[in-house]
Every structure is written in structure tokens, then in C-alpha cells.
């Protein structure tokens, strides 16, 4: 009865061989595991223990606070503010979860998942270097991202400092901005301690003085976990040294005056682009440098969005370009300074030599017209320069020839970068026979020499070169390198690098020649060529210019830029231009100004009115009407 349920087949074949096999397999399996374990733990235990230790502690850079920037009066132009950044360490982000994480993170941050992936993929560092995918994240967002760490492998939220520019667009072209380092720069700067997720000056003095501003990063030993989260600092190996501060030559007040004057003129005349520069001709210090349209450099400091960046890039007025130094334009009549100086110094003319001016000169069958179709009759230097007679300077240029004209242009600093401490400076073109042979395979034609004499044709200059040339005129022939930085001050307040004027050359020109040219510049005003600058209590000498460019309209007229570059004496209310004591030279450039009057002259006047606090309003608004091509040259 009991046997009935003991099992259907008591004498079962239990297959001892298979049990034995199973047992042997079991023993072999554990034997294999044990031998591997012995290999790892006993044979290589010490090496692995070392690796575990190395795993835990990493040497980490201590970032140094970036140096500050002040204006010449000690006003702070940039600050470092704390902000949250979101970074991803690709090594900690499993490949299979990339898209998922990017999508979730993008949702939290309000940016495109594809942008995040692009940022990661184009990051310059290795897979172990964190990549900054968002900057200046709101605190609440940062907290949410932080708390979602479990679902976002490889993602960390860090507090870092970023630049803030309180004046934004006002000084954007001077200060520039900082941005994430790119691959090329990283490769170049890695030996100097740059990190893959470092910020680096990308434009303006932030870029040119990067080495001073950055400071020296320190080193510390940090215990961290696998997610890259720092657990604790174990030891500081080397303290960080804060960056040095810059004191600019720029005076924010003057910069504001220049901006206001330029904006006023551009609005009144409907201009799209303009430049205003003010400098001290005795030292080469730039007091104001305005290029409009400008941009807000805080956008870059906060990590500009792709759409904002594209908008700036595609704007045809090129707001990211500093038109004062990074672009060159035909100088027009302002260039007559070169022909005049050369004519006097090469003894082709004297200040009192009178040349016959007409409606046009003829070369072969080509007529070269004066802007004044009736001419000025017999004209000396004051008359020729003051009325800006084209036929007068055609003749002077013809006497000099292409190469002497080019020589004097180069003496004034044209055709080469001024060396101002801003990146991307253009060099302009000074046409000579050699230059034209290289460029076009022919020497200069006589007619082209005429054109060169009045700043048309092949010559192009940057506004910075032009003002620097007039600064040399005003100071008696010393061509200085224009400078933006007055002092570099160490973190402890000591001056590391004091300001010193940087002489490019003492011009090979007599004081008499320059005095004659300064007086001729004064006659530009006194002959009322520049309208009512003459009425101002401030006594100005200088030169206006109109430079045709581009293609003719239906009536056969060319669009033109207008220029005015001038200076005042040390005592601006006295008109003694025999002296070389000027401390203010200024330049206004109005791009494509189809106005009745010379918009640049009016902009210069507006600046003088603001700068010298002149109560009376000298702004002649009627003259600034667009659509009329007749103008002063």
C-alpha cells in the first residue's frame, strides 16, 4: 500500500554517470572562478589596489578668477558673476542612453536635444572631459536637473563664474567677450593649463589680453566618484593666482558721448553703419571707439543660442565686425593729407604755390572732374585743401607720381595694421606701381595716380589708420601705435605693465610741412567748406571726405561714404594750429550716407557739442536729409 505512492518505479536508473558529470562540471566551474579570482586578487592585487586608489583621487585644476576691466577713470566695465552651468561627461553617458538623456535634458533646459548632441560631439576634449551644454541656467532649473541625476547619467550641474558686461553694447567691440574654447585653441593652449571646458577671450581685449586676464590655475587633489561628482578636496597642491586687471584708455563718458553723437547722426541721416573714434594724439590712447551697429556681448557671455548667433551673422550690416579696425573703406578727400604732405616735403609745391583749378582735367581723352564743376580758379594749399579741390590734388599727385604718393601714405601708417590691441585688424591698401604689378600685372596709370591723390580708386583705409594719420599730423609727426589698455594691474594692486606711448615712427617730414597742413586743415573750417563747424566756440581743424563706392544708380550717381577727421588744440577754444599740443583728435565715418550735407561732419559736431558741454544747439538738422547727392567733399 505504501509502495503504491513511493514512486512508480522504485528500481529507477539514477544515471550515476550523469550525476558524476554534473559534479565534475560544478567543480570545474568553481575551480575556474577561483583561479581567476586568485589571479586578480593575489597575483595582481597590489596593482589593482593602486588603480582603485587612483580611481578615487584625481588631480583637478583650481580655476583662477578672471581679471577685471576698468575704464580710464576707474569705472568697472566687467564683473564675474556666479552662474549655474550644466555639463555632460561623455564617458559617463552610456552610448545607448545618449539620445534619451539628451531629450530629457533638453526638455528641462528648453533647448534642442540635437543641439546637446552636437555640442557633445564637437567638444574639443576627450571623453573624460566634461562638456558644457548649457550656461547661465536658472537656479530652479539647475536644481531640477541636479535632482534628476539618477535619470541623467553623465550630467552634472556646476557653479562657475561667467562674465557680465554692465554696459553691454556700448563697449562690446572694445571688451569683446569670452566663450568656450575650441579645438584648435585647446591644442595650442593645453600646455599652458587650459582645460577642455575652459572659457577663453574670443573678441576685443578679452581676446588680446587673454594671457593677463586669465591668471594661473592651481591644482588640487580631489576625491571624486564615478559620476565625476567631487566628494571632497583632499589637498591643495598649488593655489590659483587670480588674473590681472586691465585699465583701459577708454573713458566711458567719452564713449557714451561718441555713441550718442553717432546714433543721433545715423538716425537723422538714416544711416545703417558708422564709426566714431576719439584719441589722444600725444600718446596714441584711444578715448572712445564706437562701431555701429553693435551687439550685446552679454549674449555671448551667457552662451549664445544658435538662432541668436545666426541672426547676428546674417545681419548685412555686420554688427559683429568692428568697422573701425576690422574693415577698410575708401578714404576720399581725407586722403588729400597724404598728397599735400608729400607735395610740400618733396618740394613739388609750397604752401603759397598757386595751381589753376578747373571743372575737370583731361588725360588723353578722359576727363577727371572736380566735385565743383566750375573750379576755384588759381588756388594755393589753403584754398585747395580747404575747398577740397580735386583738380588741385590731381595735379599734386601727378607731380609726386604713384610711388612717392605711396611712400607718404605709408609714412602716415596706411597700408599696414596700426597694431592696436584688438584682434582681426585689416591693413588697408596703398597702391604703388609695385603693388599694382603684383596685384594686376600692370603699373599705375596716370589717371589712377590722380584718383589715388584724392583717396579714390585703389586706396582703402581703416578708420583707425585714418585717425592715427591725423593724430601724427596734430602731434608734429610722431606716429604712435593706438592703444586701448593703459595699465595692467596685478591681483595685489601693483602695476605690472604701466602705460607707455608706443612710437611706430618719427615721420620723415619737416615741422614746417606739417604746420602748413594743419593750417590748411583749419582753412577747411574757416572757408566754411564744412558748414557751421566754424560757428562753434571750439576751434577745429580737419578734413571732410566723400568716398564713392559700389555701383551707379539709374541717374549715374554712385553711393558714397562720408568722413570727417579733425582735432582741436590743447586749449580747444584757441585756434592756434601752428602748435602741436592737441590732445583730442576725432573721426566720424558714415557708411553709405546719401545725405544733403556731410553726415560725418554733423556727427563730429554733435560729439563736440556733447563733449565740451556746449549749451547752444549747433546741430543743423536740415542738412541731414537723405536722398540728395550734392554734398561737401
Amino acid at each position, binding site marked *: 500500500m505504501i509502495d503504491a505512492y513511493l514512486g512508480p518505479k522504485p528500481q529507477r536508473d539514477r544515471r550515476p554517470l550523469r550525476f558524476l558529470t554534473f559534479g565534475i562540471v560544478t567543480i570545474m566551474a568553481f575551480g575556474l572562478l577561483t583561479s581567476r579570482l586568485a589571479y586578480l586578487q593575489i597575483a595582481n592585487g597590489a596593482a589593482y589596489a593602486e588603480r582603485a586608489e587612483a580611481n578615487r583621487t584625481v588631480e583637478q585644476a583650481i580655476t583662477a578668477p578672471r581679471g577685471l576691466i576698468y575704464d580710464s577713470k576707474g569705472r568697472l566695465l566687467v564683473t564675474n558673476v556666479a552662474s549655474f552651468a550644466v555639463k555632460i561627461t561623455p564617458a559617463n553617458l552610456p*552610448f545607448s542612453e545618449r539620445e534619451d538623456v539628451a531629450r530629457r535634458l533638453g526638455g528641462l533646459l528648453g533647448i534642442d536635444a540635437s543641439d546637446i548632441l552636437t555640442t557633445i560631439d564637437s567638444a574639443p576634449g576627450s571623453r573624460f572631459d566634461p562638456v558644457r551644454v548649457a550656461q547661465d541656467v536658472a537656479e530652479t532649473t539647475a536644481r531640477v536637473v541636479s535632482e534628476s541625476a539618477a535619470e541623467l547619467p553623465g550630467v552634472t550641474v556646476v557653479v562657475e563664474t561667467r562674465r557680465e558686461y554692465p554696459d553691454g553694447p556700448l563697449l562690446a567691440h572694445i571688451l569683446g567677450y569670452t566663450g568656450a574654447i575650441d579645438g584648435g585653441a585647446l591644442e595650442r593652449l593645453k600646455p599652458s593649463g587650459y582645460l577642455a571646458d575652459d572659457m577663453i577671450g574670443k573678441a576685443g581685449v578679452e581676446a588680446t589680453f587673454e594671457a593677463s586676464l586669465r591668471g594661473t590655475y592651481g591644482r588640487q587633489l580631489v576625491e571624486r566618484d564615478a559620476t565625476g561628482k567631487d566628494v571632497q578636496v583632499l589637498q591643495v597642491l598649488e593655489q590659483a593666482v587670480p588674473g590681472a586687471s586691465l585699465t583701459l584708455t577708454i573713458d566711458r563718458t567719452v564713449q557714451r558721448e561718441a555713441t550718442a553723437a553717432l546714433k543721433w547722426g545715423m538716425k537723422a541721416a538714416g544711416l545703417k553703419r558708422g564709426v566714431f573714434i576719439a584719441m589722444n594724439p600725444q600718446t596714441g590712447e584711444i578715448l572712445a571707439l564706437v562701431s555701429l551697429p553693435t551687439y550685446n556681448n552679454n549674449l555671448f557671455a551667457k552662451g549664445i543660442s544658435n538662432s541668436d548667433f545666426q541672426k547676428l551673422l546674417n545681419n548685412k550690416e555686420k554688427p559683429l565686425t568692428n568697422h573701425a579696425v576690422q574693415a577698410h573703406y575708401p578714404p576720399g578727400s581725407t586722403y588729400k593729407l597724404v598728397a599735400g604732405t608729400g607735395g610740400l616735403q618733396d618740394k613739388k609745391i609750397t604752401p603759397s604755390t598757386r595751381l589753376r583749378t578747373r571743372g575737370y582735367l583731361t588725360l588723353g581723352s578722359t576727363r577727371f572732374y572736380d566735385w565743383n564743376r566750375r573750379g576755384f580758379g588759381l588756388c594755393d594749399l589753403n584754398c585747395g585743401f580747404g575747398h577740397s579741390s580735386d583738380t588741385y590734388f590731381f595735379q599734386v599727385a601727378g607731380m609726386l607720381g604713384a610711388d612717392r604718393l605711396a611712400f607718404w601714405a605709408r609714412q602716415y601708417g596706411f597700408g599696414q595694421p596700426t597694431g592696436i590691441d584688438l584682434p582681426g585688424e585689416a591693413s588697408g591698401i596703398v597702391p604703388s606701381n609695385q603693388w599694382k604689378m603684383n596685384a594686376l600685372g600692370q603699373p599705375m596709370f596716370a589717371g589712377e595716380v590722380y584718383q589715388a591723390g584724392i583717396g579714390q580708386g585703389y586706396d582703402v583705409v581703416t578708420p583707425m589708420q585714418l585717425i592715427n594719420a591725423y593724430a601724427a599730423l596734430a602731434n608734429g609727426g610722431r606716429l604712435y601705435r593706438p592703444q586701448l589698455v593703459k595699465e595692467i594691474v596685478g591681483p595685489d594692486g601693483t602695476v605690472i605693465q604701466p602705460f607707455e606711448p608706443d612710437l611706430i615712427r618719427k615721420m620723415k617730414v619737416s615741422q614746417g610741412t606739417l604746420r602748413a597742413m594743419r593750417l590748411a586743415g583749419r582753412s577747411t573750417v574757416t572757408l566754411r567748406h564744412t558748414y557751421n563747424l566754424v560757428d562753434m566756440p571750439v576751434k577745429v581743424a580737419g578734413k571732410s571726405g566723400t568716398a564713392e563706392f559700389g555701383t551707379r544708380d539709374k541717374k549715374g550717381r554712385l553711393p558714397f561714404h562720408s568722413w570727417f577727421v579733425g582735432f582741436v588744440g590743447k586749449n580747444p577754444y584757441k585756434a592756434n594750429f601752428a602748435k602741436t599740443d592737441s590732445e583730442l583728435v576725432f573721426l566720424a565715418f558714415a557708411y553709405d550716407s546719401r545725405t544733403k550735407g556731410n553726415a560725418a561732419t554733423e556727427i563730429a559736431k554733435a560729439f563736440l557739442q556733447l563733449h565740451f558741454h556746449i549749451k547752444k544747439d549747433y546741430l543743423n538738422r536740415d542738412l541731414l536729409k537723405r536722398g540728395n547727392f550734392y554734398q561737401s567733399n
Partner: protein
Amino acid sequence: MRVMRAEPSRFADVTARSVGAVWRAYDLQLTTYAALLGAIGLVMAYTNSVEAGQSVLENGTVFSRALMWSGLAMVVFITVTVFDYRWLKTLRWLLYVTNVGLLLLTLAIGDGVGGSARWVQLGPVTFQFSELAKIVMISVLAAYLGDRESRLDSLWPILGAGLLMVPPWVLVMMQPDLGTSLVLIAILAGMLFMSGASLKWLIAGALATVPAALIGWTYVLRDYQKERILSFLNPVADSQGSNWQVLQSQIAVGSGGLLGTGLTNGSQGRGEFLPVQESDFVFAVLAQELGFIGALVVFLLFAALIWRILMSAWRSRDPFGTLFGAGLASLILFQVFVNVGMVIGILPVTGIPLPFITHGGASLVSIAIGLGVMQSVNIRQHRAEW
């Protein structure tokens, strides 16, 4: 009819036999080894809790959850021991259908990492029915093959057992859970081998898996699973992705040395270098903190446990008991070998838990059920003849 035959025996156990006879048949060694392994699992839960910065006895910590599951596992073990295992034979088809149903439910409402469906939320706890499926399939196959003991030299019972395995296997793969599906195959293979099935057919079946594996690689495996296997075969290709865990766990194991760094002192674990230290990579923490000696003790306990299960299987006069033991031993051996092999870098990462020590309620309770059934088989043998 089988029901009728099983019915009287339940009462007969209690009434006809003395407590002493039951006690003699009860395998105390088996229970002891299991209890020791469970205790080591609790110790690992404790050290992981401490390293995660938890105050160990609070609600919801790794340790408190492990305590709860251990308690439950003990209750389950005793209950199942008392329960007459022959009901499993009677109810095999009901068990089978319920099992498939639970796996379907998991697919329908389950949660998991990255879009997978593995866990089902049961009130305050989550449960992985695929763990239970392993034990259920052992029971079903033991009953199925036990009935066909005399015909095992033909192809049909082998094919039938294979077909029985197909639905749960496919459902597990759909979760997708590569690890559990491999365990199911290992159980099937182990049981067929131990049942005495024709070696000729078994070898033919093994060879047939080669084209099946190729098809599986192409159509069934998810990208991340392929990536894991590839990264194992070529560690240099992706030293930070899948292989990161493998490398880190080898560092952890290696740095343990002979005696280990001591409990709660595993730097690898505390630094979170082991991303899932409380689950599949818990052995790495164990090897680091308890060293070679500690790991060897664990191996010996597992080997001893398998030995006792095989002894129970050998002694069983009921082919069900023999086959159940074979399945359970296969499960434990395979899981230990694959999990530890993964941790020490000789096998790819597959996500197979280490019995008793990986923290997971379903795994522990399932093992407890399996051991309970084994003891139930033991105490229902009348004589130890050998």
C-alpha cells in the same frame, strides 16, 4: 486520477510516520548552507546601505528591504517544505498557464530601465515574475519529463520539453531580459542532461542552437545587448561604455587582495564606481571587502549547497524529485558562474543575479521556494537506502 492518488498521502505523512522519520529525511545541511548564504547576502546589504550613506534601519534602505525579504523567504521556505510537493505535479498545467499569464502581465504593466518591462508593482514592493518563472518551469519540466522517464532515449520528450519552454522564454526575451532567458535555457539543458535523455539528441539540439543564435543576434537582441557582448569580446573598443562596469568591477575585485578591505570600506563601492553595486555587481563589493578568503567561503557554500541538492535529487525515488533537484542545481550553478564570471571579467555582462546575495526579493523568494520543494521531496522519501 493522479489527484486521487496524491490526496491520501497528505494525511498519511502526518499520521502514519513519526516526526523522527521526517526529521531524519530532512536535509539539515542544505538548510544550513542556504541560511549562511542568506546571512552573507544580508551582510552585503548592510555594507551597501552604509556606503550609500543610509542609516541602515530606516524604511526603504537596501538593508531594511533585504531584512524584510529574508524574513519572507524564511516563511516561504518553511511553508513550502511542509507543503506536499506532489501537488506541483497535479497542478503543473495550472502553474504553467499562470506563469505565462504573469509574464504577459509583466509585459503589459511592468516597469524597467530604458523602456523595458521587468518589474510589476505590487502595493509597496516590486516583483520580478521572471524569477518565479524559473522555479515554475523547473517544476513543470520535472513533472513533464518525470512522466516520460522511460521514453527519454527518443526525440519526442526532448522536443516536447523544448516546446514547453518556448512561450515563457519568448515572453522573457520580449521584456527584454537576456539574463533570465539564458537561465531558462540552462535549466532546460541541465534537466534534460540529468534526466538521462539521449545524448545523441542533446548534442544535436545543442548544435541546432548555432543557427538559432545567429537568427537571435539579427532579429531578437537589442542594440545595447549586442553592444555589451561586443564590448566584452573587444574591450578596447568601448573602454567607457559597457566595459566601464567590467573594468571597474575587476579593479574592485583585484584591490580586495587576500583579506579584503573590510566591510563598508570598499572604495569602489562608496565612490559609485560600480553603478549597480547592490544588484548584479554585488559580488565585486564582496570580493573587495572580504577578499579572496571571503569569496572562497562563498564559493564553498555554493558548492556545498549544490552538492546537497544533487544528493537530494539522487535519493529521490520519485523522478520528479530527481529532476527538480537537477533543475535547481543547474539554476544555481549557472547563475553563480555567469554572475561571478561577469564580475571578474571572464564573461559578458548579462544581468543575471547572484542567488542569495544580489538584493532582489523575487530572486530570494524563488530560491526559497525551490529549496523548500527540495526539502519537501526529502521528507517525503520513506527510507534512505543508500
